[in-house]
């Protein structure tokens, strides 16, 4: 986790201090810290001369800009129709069993957060999921076991 103030200065220097820079900055913070803390958001607001409520309102609009603490690896399982038809429920079950958390929760060691999301654009290879930015498709129970085991080792 990077210190908010310096991170935001760095991002603002890179992307600018216009309103249009807000999204790249929010994305940059999430990339580094996994989520947007309240202090991060107030710092961003001050840096861009916006109100904190405006920053909060923008962040909460986007499902990838989490305002709740998230684990190091955020797993988002597609719940839209073709993935659902092809066994998304089993995939979620497998993940819940392996990580011992439910959808929406984070493991106590703050390593994994398990979420559902809408269509990821891998419908022809569903079920699919994202772990942070990386897509995984054609999921089966075995495949999920292999993938998650690798992450657990990391």
């Amino acid at each position, binding site marked *: 986790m990077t210190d908010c103030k310096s991170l935001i200065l760095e991002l603002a220097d890179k992307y600018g201090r216009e309103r249009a820079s807000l999204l790249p900055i929010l994305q940059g913070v999430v990339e580094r810290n996994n989520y947007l803390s309240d202090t991060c958001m*107030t710092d961003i*607001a001050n840096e861009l001369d916006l109100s*904190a*409520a405006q920053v*909060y309102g923008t962040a*909460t609009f986007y499902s990838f800009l989490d305002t709740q603490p998230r684990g190091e690896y955020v797993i988002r399982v597609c719940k839209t129709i073709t993935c659902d038809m092809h066994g998304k429920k089993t995939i979620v079950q497998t993940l819940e069993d392996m990580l011992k958390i439910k959808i929406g929760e984070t493991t106590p060691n703050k390593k994994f957060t398990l979420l559902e999301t809408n269509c990821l654009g891998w419908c022809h290879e569903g079920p699919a999921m994202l772990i942070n930015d990386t897509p995984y498709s054609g999921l089966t129970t075995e495949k999920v076991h292999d993938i998650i085991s690798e992450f657990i080792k990391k």
Partner: protein
Amino acid sequence: MAKKINLTIDGITVAVDEGTTILEAARNLNIHIPTLCFHEDLCVAGNCRVCVVEQEKVKNLPASCATPAAEGMVIHTNSMKVRMARKHIVELLLSEHNADCTKCYKNGNCELQGLASQMLTGDHLFLDLVPDKKYTIDMFNTAIIKDDSRCIRCQRCVRTCEQLQSVSALGVAYKGNKMKISTFFEHSLFEVVCTNCGQCVNRCPTGALIERNYIDQVWDAIYDPNKHVVVQTAPAVRVALGEALGMATGKIVTGKMVAALRRLGFSSVLDTDFTADLTIIEEGHELLTRLKKALVDKDPTVSLPMATSCSPGWIKFIEHTFPEYLPNLSTCKSPQQMFGALAKTYYAQKRKLNPKDIVSVSIMPCTAKKFEANRPEMRSSGYKDVDFVLTTRELGIMIKQAGLDFEELPEEKFDSFMGSSTGAAVIFGSTGGVMEAALRTAYEIVTGREVPFDGLNIVAVRGTEGEVREASIKIDKVKPEWSFLEGVELKCAVANGLAHAKTLMQNVRDGKVTYHFIEVMACPGGCLGGGGQPIPTNKEIRTKRKIAIYEEDMGMPIRKSHENPEIAEIYKEFLGQPLGHKSHELLHTHYTPRKRY
């Protein structure tokens, strides 16, 4: 001249200027299309969709508020398609709405309710979504209550807070079925940058944003035989109260208001205008003192420009947003708080009352005054200086509750003392008024002559709303004791609405402008457009109230604060001299920086 556009609405062909919306064109024809998210003061949102109309040869129903008239358009505002769609939309709004109107403060004065009754929505077409929602009510604030269960998400409040006030304490959060109006992280309005100006409350079409009302507490005090209940009324109340009671806009109802207050049972009906005059004396001297320190003593710690401090919304704005400018605020309390402090000291002494038996009530055009009265700083009398603050709207409700026929009441006069005032105090209710009143007095103190303006009217500071106005007065032929001001050009600026105040302060901060004295009122148009004024308030209405205020000033026998006889009396009997020890104790204060979120 703007290009003309011809269109047909409900069979009537009209020509309108290019850029006119279908809604405006219809209103010109006295065809009333219902609206909810639309408000004259705000940019168009086009999100509620109740204003849809049918356009021939077009599949979808355009939102009339958001669609400019186009050549040859044929519009039907009440076709079968429109009626069905409109009814669906209102039914949808009601389905996610906690519509127990009889428990709602806005009952009888609610735009949603009005539409629902127009549309006979009794049959509840759709399922009730309220049980699925986790609505919350923010009750922590002393001025404003926010009840999400009554919100129709029209975003009027959000646009108000952003566009008129540049505060953006309220925003839109989340999306889809979770979309809601929210402060930062859903904190209470009490904790965030909200200035309590109440502009959002004034524009909320429903009961989702309302003032915290103290009507019952005030009735209790009135009925309590052991209490002496004094009431003060702010300058801007008398130009708007009539509207809340069915009278025409822009009618001054001072005499009837006094009569009504007496009939409600207040022990003594007094006037905030009195302390407005007092503010001018204190603030005028403070300004002159600061100028002396700066010009003669070359004291680098003196903060100029000095800024007025009558508007509690403005004060809180500075505390949050420009805390480095706190020293620039005049240390004078607002007239309301000066009055409160004197009510439980000077007034109590003179009337031989125990201050603990006095309940001090104020009638204000303002919701921020409720917050101000509850500030810990505001207890210099040893008690809470002002116990309850009611808005113009709340007074309107009390008058209705008491069954008074307001229009038929006789014109009565304020009690004395602390009831007499001047034209200078009256204009406090409008943007530029404090500045004008202060100049009338300060100039005369310094030069011994009246301000060099026709009929004492310093028109330059009046101007129109929505801009920062500047004025300068050359001071010459001064009295000997003010010789340091000889030839000084006194530079002033006036702003109303916090969005303009922000621009002004940014310019000051960036060194783009230099002033000696600035007046800021948090609300558009000044107090006459306050958040506690009757609903609706919009530019047209504010203009009428403003005209009324300046007419009232012209009609007053005394038009300069320092000529108010009761003011001379209070200095003689009680305060001693302006900025004296007693004044400092009772009439001046200081503020503290606050977090910005």
